[in-house]
C-alpha cells in the first residue's frame, strides 16, 4: 500500500497539470510585473531599464492623479471599516439572536453579493442618472429639488456616489461572515449571562463581540484590502472621472497601461497595490493582536 501511495508517476500525473497552470498564470506574472515596473516601456519598442524611477514618479511631483487615487482608496477603506462593517455587525447580531424570519432576512441581504458588479454598476448608473434617475426623481418628489445633482458627473459628488454601491453590495457578505461566527457561540453562555441579569446590549458588547474577534479581524482585512484593490464598480460607473475625482489606484493603473501604453509605470502601480495590501494585512493582524481562538 505504501508503494501504491508513493507511486511517483501517479503523483506527477495528479499534481503537475494544476501546478504548471498555477505557476505560469498566477505566480510567475507577479515577477514579470515587478520586472516591467523597472522599465520605461510602451509595449511596442524595447523597454529601457530605469531602476526605481517609476516608483519615484508615483510619489514625487506626481501630477497624473496617483496621489489622489491612493487617498481615495484610503477614504474607501475607512468608510468600509467604520460604516459598512458596523451595519453588517448590527444586522448579524440581531439575526443571530433568533428573530422571526431569520433565514429570510439573511438570504435577502446576501443577494447583492452574488450579482455581477457590471449589473450593479449599470443599475446604479441609472439610479444616479441626472434626468430620469431614481435618486433625483425621489428627491424632487419629496420637495428636496435643491439637492438634485449630476451625481457621477460632478467632481464634488462622484467619489461619494461610487462608494455607496460598493458599500451597499458587500454589507451582506460581511454580515454573513459575522452571523456564522456569532451563531457558533454556545448558547449556554448567553443563558448564564441572562440569569445573572445581563441586558441584550451588555451581552452583545461584553460577550458576543469579544468572542467574534477572529472573524472581525478577517472582515476588517477584507474591507481594507478590498478597498485598496477596488476596481469593477468604479470602472463601470465613472472610470475614475471626472478629473480623477473618483480615481483609485487600479483604475489609474488600467488606464495607464491599456490607454496610455505606459507599461512600466502602470506595472509600478500594480506592484504598489500588492505591497500596500500586504502591508495593510500585516498591520491589521498586529492591531488585533494574536488570537487565541484559531
Amino acid at each position, binding site marked *: 500500500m505504501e508503494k501504491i501511495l508513493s507511486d511517483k508517476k501517479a503523483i506527477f500525473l495528479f499534481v503537475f497539470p494544476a501546478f504548471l497552470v498555477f505557476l505560469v498564470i498566477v505566480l510567475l506574472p507577479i515577477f514579470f510585473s515587478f520586472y516591467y515596473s523597472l522599465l520605461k516601456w510602451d509595449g511596442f519598442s524595447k523597454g529601457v531599464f530605469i531602476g526605481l524611477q517609476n516608483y519615484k514618479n508615483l510619489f514625487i511631483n506626481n501630477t497624473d492623479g496617483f496621489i489622489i487615487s491612493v487617498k481615495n482608496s484610503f477614504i474607501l477603506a475607512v468608510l468600509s471599516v467604520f460604516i459598512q462593517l458596523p451595519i453588517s455587525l448590527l444586522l448579524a447580531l440581531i439575526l443571530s439572536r433568533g428573530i422571526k424570519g431569520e433565514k429570510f432576512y439573511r438570504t435577502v441581504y446576501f*443577494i447583492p453579493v452574488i450579482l*455581477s458588479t457590471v449589473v450593479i454598476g449599470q443599475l446604479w448608473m441609472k439610479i444616479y442618472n441626472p434626468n*430620469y434617475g*431614481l435618486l433625483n426623481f425621489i428627491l424632487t418628489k419629496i420637495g428636496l429639488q435643491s439637492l438634485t445633482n449630476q451625481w457621477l458627473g460632478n467632481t464634488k459628488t462622484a467619489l461619494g456616489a461610487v462608494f455607496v454601491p460598493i458599500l451597499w453590495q458587500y454589507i451582506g*457578505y460581511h454580515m454573513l461572515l459575522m452571523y456564522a461566527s456569532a451563531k457558533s457561540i454556545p448558547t449556554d453562555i448567553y443563558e448564564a449571562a441572562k440569569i445573572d441579569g445581563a441586558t441584550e446590549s451588555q451581552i452583545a458588547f461584553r460577550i458576543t463581540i469579544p468572542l467574534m474577534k477572529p472573524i472581525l479581524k478577517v472582515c476588517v482585512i477584507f474591507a481594507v484590502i478590498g478597498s485598496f484593490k477596488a476596481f469593477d464598480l468604479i470602472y463601470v460607473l465613472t472610470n475614475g472621472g471626472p478629473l480623477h475625482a473618483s480615481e483609485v489606484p487600479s483604475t489609474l493603473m488600467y488606464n495607464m497601461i491599456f490607454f496610455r501604453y505606459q507599461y512600466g509605470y502602470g506595472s509600478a502601480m*500594480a506592484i504598489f497595490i500588492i505591497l500596500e495590501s500586504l502591508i495593510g494585512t500585516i498591520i491589521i493582524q498586529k492591531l488585533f493582536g494574536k488570537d487565541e481562538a484559531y
Partner: protein
Amino acid sequence: MKNIANKNNKRGMKKIGLYLLEAMLVIWAIIQLYPLFWLFLFSVKNNTEIFGGNILGFPRIWQWSNYSEALSSGNVGRYFINSSIVTVLTIVISSILVATSAYAIVRMKWKYSKLVLTIFLMGMMVPIHATLLPLFIILKNLNLLNTYASLVIPYVAFAIPMGIFILTGFLYTIPRELEESAFLDGCSIYKSFYYIILPLIRPALATIAIFTYLSTWNELMFANTFINNDAIKTLTVGIMSLSGQYQTEWGPIGAGLVIATIPTILIYVLLSEQVQKSLVVGAVKG
C-alpha cells in the same frame, strides 16, 4: 402591585424594542432589494414611460419586447452563450485539476507535498491586478487573445488555490479505511481515486463549483482586457458595450441586465444555503 406594573412595563418595552428591530430589518431588506426590483421594472417599460415621468411605478404597458430586442439586436443571446461556455469549461477543468492535486497532496506520500500545498495556498492572496499585464502579453504572444482559452486558462488558474484550500480541508476528514481495503484487494490508485474518492468528495466539489461559477460568471477585468471581438464577448463585457451603444434605450439594457442575472438568481433560489456557505468557507482562512 407595583412590582407587577413594573414587570408589565418591562415586557411592553421589550415588545416595542422587538417591533423596532423588525422594522429595521424590513427597511434594510427594502434597501437591499428595491434597486433590483426597480431594475426589473424599467426592463419592461418603454421609453415614453421611463422618460415621461413613470420611472417609479409599475409599467402601464408591459414591454416584454425589450427582452427579445436585447437578445437579438443587442447580442445578449450571444454573450450569454459565451459566458456559459467559458463558465462550464472553467468549472469542469478546474474541478478535475483541483480534485487530482488535492488528493495527491493529502493522501499520497511524497517529499514536497507540504511545500506544494503552501505554494498553492499563497495564490489565494494574489490580486489579479498584478498578473493582468503579464498575462495580456503572454496571451498576445501565443495568439490567444479573443479566444475562449484566453479567459478559461486564467479563470482555471485562479480557481485552483481556493479549490485546493477547500478540498484538502475536506479530504482530511474522510477516513482512509475504504481506500486501504480497496488497495488490499488489488485496486489501483487511479481506480481508487475515481470509484472511491470522487463520489465522497462531491459535496466539497459542489461548494467549489458554486464559488467558481460566481467568480467566473461575474468577472470583468480579464474579460474586458483579453476580449474585444463581439463574437467572443462574455456578458460582463458585452453589457458594458451594449450600454455604450444604447445610451437612451433603458428598456433593452435593463432586459440585458436581468437576463445576465437570471442564472445566478436561479442557482441562489435553489441552493441558497450552499451558495452562502461557499462564499463564507474561503474566508475562514483569512
